[in-house]
């Protein structure tokens, strides 16, 4: 029973509908420091998926009785703008956003030096402005950059990408139709380009072998994201001549 609206084929030969080959990522675009009022901010795009993240803090954490006397407490909100998808999303709380907010927060919690800022809170907001699948990956990449932009101490950046199985073929960086009409969707995030996964979410049916292949491919994807993230940080803040005091 195929879903209404499914295209006839998603992969023709070794090319996907948008012309990419199986292991190609969509073009990535990023920037930092674009929201002046935020302590740190960043955007991250996979093709037409556009995520904007802002960080406020470390700042006093309220309510006081929930403060941690030894650490900063991270708070994270992932949200999709009502106009970000084909059908309008009703604004406000929904279960999917709550779950994704939690997994993004846990991924970032594994790298932030929370012990450096006891009794404080660090607020992280990831807004999806335009969605074409892999939104939590774009959101997490943007949030990671925003934390660096904010001067929040971290072990390393967090890098996230998606891998999928469509028409029995394993592909990198799912777009909308591939996610909706494909067989498997796997979102991961790693600590930098290390073999350390801080986010793994998979939907769909897959054998152990297929899964391990997807994991290997995802590490390549995260490596590409890592490169892009490092590039924008160096590019944006590169120093001029260093002679003057």
């Amino acid at each position, binding site marked *: 029973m195929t879903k209404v609206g499914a295209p006839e084929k998603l992969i023709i030969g070794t090319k996907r509908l948008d012309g990419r080959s199986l292991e190609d990522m969509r073009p990535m675009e990023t920037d930092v420091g674009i929201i002046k009022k935020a302590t740190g901010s960043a955007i991250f795009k996979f093709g037409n998926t556009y995520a904007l993240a802002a960080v406020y803090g470390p700042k006093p954490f309220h309510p006081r009785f929930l403060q941690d006397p030894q650490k900063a407490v991270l708070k994270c909100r992932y949200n999709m703008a009502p106009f970000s998808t084909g059908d309008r999303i009703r604004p406000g709380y929904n279960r999917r956003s709550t779950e994704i907010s939690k997994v993004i927060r846990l991924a970032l919690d594994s790298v932030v030096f929370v012990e450096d800022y006891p009794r404080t809170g660090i607020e992280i907001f990831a807004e999806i402005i335009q969605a074409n699948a892999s939104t939590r990956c774009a959101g997490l990449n943007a949030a990671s950059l925003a934390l660096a932009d904010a001067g929040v*101490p971290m072990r390393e950046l967090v890098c996230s990408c998606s891998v999928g199985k469509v028409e029995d073929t394993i592909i990198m960086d799912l777009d909308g139709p591939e996610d909706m009409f494909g067989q498997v969707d796997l979102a991961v995030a790693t600590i930098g380009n290390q073999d350390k996964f801080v986010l793994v979410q998979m939907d769909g049916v897959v054998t152990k072998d297929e899964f391990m292949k997807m994991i290997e491919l995802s590490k390549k994807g995260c490596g590409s994201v890592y490169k892009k993230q490092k590039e924008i940080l160096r590019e944006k803040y590169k120093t*001029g001549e260093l002679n003057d005091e």
Partner: protein
Amino acid sequence: MEDEQVTENTSNSTLLVKERELVTPGDVLAEGLDFLPSSGCYREDNQIKAKLLGLIKIKNRFIGIIPLSGVYVPRPGDGIIGFVKDMQSTSWIIDINSPYDALLVLGEAVGEFVDITKRDISSYFDIGDIIYAKVLNVTKSKHVQLTMNDHRAKKLSDGRLLKITPSKVPRLIGKQGSMIELIKNETKCQIIVGQNGVVWIRGEKEGLASKAVKTIEQESHTGGLTEKITKLLEKGD
């Protein structure tokens, strides 16, 4: 007899960055056990890595990072500008532009004996008053105490306040205060710079001075800054 030299390659340790190089979180700065992490850096097994986006600062074997952004974390000895946000019977709570508020107790603020049954402490400092004070003590969980027992400490009135990223304060002050003196002279203003990134300006050309301060904040990581600021001050309002 050879002179002992401290080279970049000491035994089997390697330094991988230079002074004022821009680094990002996770960058490997040195390998081997001879180098030590200072503020903004951490050790992971055999490597020293960056915690922050910022510029490298090397002192002997210590590798540190001057952050490009970030909030103010008070350290004992810092001179800061804050404002009174709350009071209790014998102390004031001071907002010091930090995730951490500071406490100023009566004994550290006033030199004489005060009979609090006869005199309300608001007569010394009231809510909203701006003060320049010194950080006396910071506990492990970052409870901060201030003191006015310092020749620079005083209440600041009139003028205007600006906030800049705390890590850029040294750039604003300049080598031996040269940058801040330049601005003071050209704008005929009193300017006090707190380590917490709060700047107080009072005088003739407050607007021009503010503009100069803001420009230094935005361009702090680039070179030729003295020239840029001199030009800006010459142009006037």
